[in-house]
């Protein structure tokens, strides 16, 4: 008797898994539209959402790869802040913008590599300890090099990465206000590159294999540690790109940049269907997850919900998302 109910439910699970997130987005769009009919679907608001999520989507993508290997990176927010500070300082030092552009990704890359090497060479019991440590270390270094004060004044070329507009005058006529934020184009390109990386290359396949069964990966002759270092390095690199985009958006580097944004990133990844226990998830899902988080923040802001409540909500969403993941896993093993 009980089994029959189960099978129906289990049959539904793959569909919920696959399309549930689209349904969720549609519902959220509808609800937000009904709540704020004048504002929500305005061009301005929608581009705003994309601008907001642009740098966060970089963190989420990095954290996603780490979570696929059944790891975690809590330090992405601090890496972002440190990269941002390094960028600001090199900009203030008068370096040409062509070099300044490279500083943030390079610093992120090094930070990520430190995480990866720490986790593999020092054989930490769980990546969360190493990255919890570096969460404080990187932010400390960031404050140290900046003196704990905001630094502004970037070259226009740098600003245009995060703040540029691609005007749609050819579509809407001369002088039209509609535009596509250049950061959206950048993140789409990066997402496509990483989609290809994860789905069309050997190493991408191995990343999934490591998350599914590290023993199997090792037995297949894969150098698991080397791949893990690469994954954490890429995660740091993406946080550096996020810093570059954020620099353009805010026009200055500030000490609180990226504070607790690792939580948003984790929430987005899990909402996007990746399993906290590794081996599962898609790049497109991550984007959907980031988008949902952006919609949520946007909706709560439009409705003037206190920032403090938003924080409570984000905390609860993380727990809920992982709980759904736990349930999904329980159903998965019962098959």
């Amino acid at each position, binding site marked *: 008797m009980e089994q029959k109910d189960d099978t129906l439910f289990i049959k539904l699970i793959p569909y919920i898994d696959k399309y549930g997130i689209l349904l969720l987005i549609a519902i959220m769009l509808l609800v937000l539209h009904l709540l704020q009919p004048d504002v929500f679907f305005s061009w301005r608001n929608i581009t705003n959402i994309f601008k907001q999520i642009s740098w966060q989507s970089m963190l989420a993508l990095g954290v996603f790869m780490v979570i696929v290997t059944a790891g975690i990176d809590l330090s992405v927010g601090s890496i972002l802040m440190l990269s941002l500070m390094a960028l600001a300082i090199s900009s203030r030092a008068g370096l040409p913008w062509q070099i300044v552009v490279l500083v943030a990704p390079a610093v992120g890359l090094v930070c990520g590599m430190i995480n990866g090497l720490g986790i593999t060479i020092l054989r930490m019991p*769980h990546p969360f300890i190493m990255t919890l440590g570096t969460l404080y270390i990187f932010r400390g270094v960031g404050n140290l090099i900046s003196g704990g004060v905001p630094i502004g004044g970037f070259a226009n070329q740098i600003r245009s990465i995060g703040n540029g507009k691609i005007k749609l005058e050819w579509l809407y006529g001369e002088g039209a206000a509609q535009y596509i934020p250049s950061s959206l184009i950048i993140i789409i390109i990066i997402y496509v590159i990483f989609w290809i990386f994860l789905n069309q290359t050997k190493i991408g396949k191995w990343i999934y294999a490591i998350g599914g069964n590290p023993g199997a990966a090792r037995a297949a002759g894969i150098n698991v540690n080397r791949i893990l270092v690469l994954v954490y390095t890429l995660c740091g690199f993406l946080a550096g790109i996020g810093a570059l985009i954020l620099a353009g958006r805010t026009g200055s580097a500030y000490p609180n940049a990226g504070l607790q944004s690792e939580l948003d990133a984790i929430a987005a990844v899990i909402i996007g269907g990746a399993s906290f226990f590794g081996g599962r998830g898609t790049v497109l899902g991550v984007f959907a997850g980031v988008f949902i988080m952006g919609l949520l923040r946007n909706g709560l802001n439009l409705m003037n919900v206190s920032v403090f409540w938003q924080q409570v909500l*984000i905390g609860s969403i993380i727990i809920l998302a992982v709980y759904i993941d736990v349930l999904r896993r329980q159903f998965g093993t019962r098959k």
Partner: protein
Amino acid sequence: MIQKQKNFISSYRKLPPEFNIFLVLLGIALVFEILGWIFIGQSFLLNKRRLVIMILQVSVIGIIAVGVTQVIIMAGIDLSGGSLVALSAIVAASLAQNSTYTKAIYPHLTDLPFIVPVLAGIACGLFAGFISGSLIARTGIPPFIATLGMLVSARGAAAWYNNGKPVSFLGDDFTALGQGAWPVLIFLVVAAVFHILMRYTRYGKHTYAIGSNEEAARVAGINIVRHKIIVYSIAGALSGLAGVVTAARAMSAQAGMGMMYELDAISAAVIGGTSLFGGRGRIAGTLFGVLILGVISSGFVFMRIDAYYQDMVKGAIIVGAVIVDHYRNKKMRNKDKDT
């Protein structure tokens, strides 16, 4: 008599971890002492004022660290300590306001006996710990995610409670708790009580057993779910107590209090020899761990080194302590590894 001697010998054999930590504490203090004579021209240790400030500062961390230690012994983790300090501090402070202050949050609830806000603060932490514990024990959500969620939520709730504004004008008998030697006394009493609980009661034994081998504890008939909830609730309650002391000491409460205390507490426990793999660790070790942190931060101030270095050093210390624990653990486990 003979048995006593045996006990003594075996307990001596167990002593070295804490003894080593004590030596490290002594070493760090001496380094600052020597550096002090060379660069600053004064003694680091022979300064009563500095020592008093240092011990007062670490007392709050120490109270949280005791709770975190027992959670880690159970092979769990609690990241919510710092946020719970803020939440409990605000809740307690809101019930401890003076009647002379006209804009009190609860105008009808002023001049209450000091025990009311104290209990309210502790209860607030207890409740939060109960929620985390229930999530962890009943749903299978990993501890660090559940308490990470609590970290964010509790900080948000603390800010929401009084719209981000500080709560001040607290009654004198409440703020007295934070003055003089009270924080230190409270910390020492908490440490002593939990030292006894962990060493001599069923509660402690079961905590060690779950951390050592959860499956073994389960088949031995221990109610794992209930025990985990109790342990996390107690950790929450201790964070609540720490919040009360913080509010009393600062004579006000605000949502930004206790930022990153959870990391200091975990560091103290790990430095003090508590294994992140669970099953091993003692309150006495945490006591030394807390003191080491205190000596470092007070030493940095003494040497007039930028405060930002502190975060880095703390981060490095926690990573270092974990590495030491890992190798110690490996040596132990290797002995009985099966084919």
